[in-house]
């Protein structure tokens, strides 16, 4: 793997590094907000990836002149990935705000947003449900 190879694929390397950082945060962190942060980094890495593949070497912004007098020698960047990613960004915002809204509700109901503490509460609830002596509703809130 030569230096040339690494440099010419720089955007892919950055994409992979960013993606793995985000993915690691989602998997390894127990705090629900940090998980959302990780998810955002993960998604943003994909946005960067798409935007970088839309770049054409020497290409300019893909806006045609108003009089539509297009010079065939001008190279334009590919606008399609940008448009796609605009949609994906909006989806990402929706996901983030929904995730945060869920966290607010979880905090209200469980009193914590740490995964291990919530799992403890849940397993306690499950034990109550499974024990025959437990109340009929088995700790249903």
């Amino acid at each position, binding site marked *: 793997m030569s230096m040339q190879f690494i440099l010419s694929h720089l955007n892919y390397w950055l994409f992979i590094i960013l993606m793995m950082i985000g993915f690691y945060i989602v998997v390894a962190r127990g705090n629900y907000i940090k998980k959302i942060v990780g998810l955002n980094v993960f998604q943003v890495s994909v946005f960067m990836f798409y935007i970088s593949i839309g770049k054409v070497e020497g290409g300019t912004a893909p806006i045609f002149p108003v009089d539509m007098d297009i010079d065939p020698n001008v190279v334009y960047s590919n606008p399609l990935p940008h448009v796609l990613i605009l949609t994906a960004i909006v989806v990402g915002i929706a996901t983030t705000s929904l995730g*945060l809204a869920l966290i607010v509700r979880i905090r209200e109901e469980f009193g914590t947003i740490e995964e291990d503490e919530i799992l403890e509460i849940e397993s306690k609830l499950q034990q109550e449900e499974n024990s025959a002596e437990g109340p009929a509703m088995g700790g249903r809130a």
Partner: protein
Amino acid sequence: MRHHLLLRVITKLLVGPIILFALYVQFHGDYSPGGGFQAGVIFAVAFILFGIVFGLEKVKLVFPPWLVHKFAAIGVLLYAGTGIYSLMLGSQYLNYSAFTPDHPEHGQHWGILVVELGVGITVAAVMVAIYYAFAARPPVISDEDW
């Protein structure tokens, strides 16, 4: 924030220009960078700024939550309605050229204008709705405990 005179005055001065700028971005979206998404967010910012400085109750008087929900729905319906109008003209969904068959470019201008307006209304309403939803929750730690 009752005592922060400076903040209150500046906010009052800013809200108008912010909304004006939102409308500028909105209606220039088909010619220059801009459009419904950006304009909607800027528009919502005016309300959110007002809410942060003057309190949630005040901003809810200006833009009550039930109205926010209706506007969110109206925006989507405006978008979908544009498409349905082109269906009724016997063309494909969102085929703007059908609006003015003699001069398709005009139809496209009209189409994108209305669709972007729909997007703008929904985005603004949804952003304000998100702000309301989060701001209306009682804080776990009260301000005095910091």
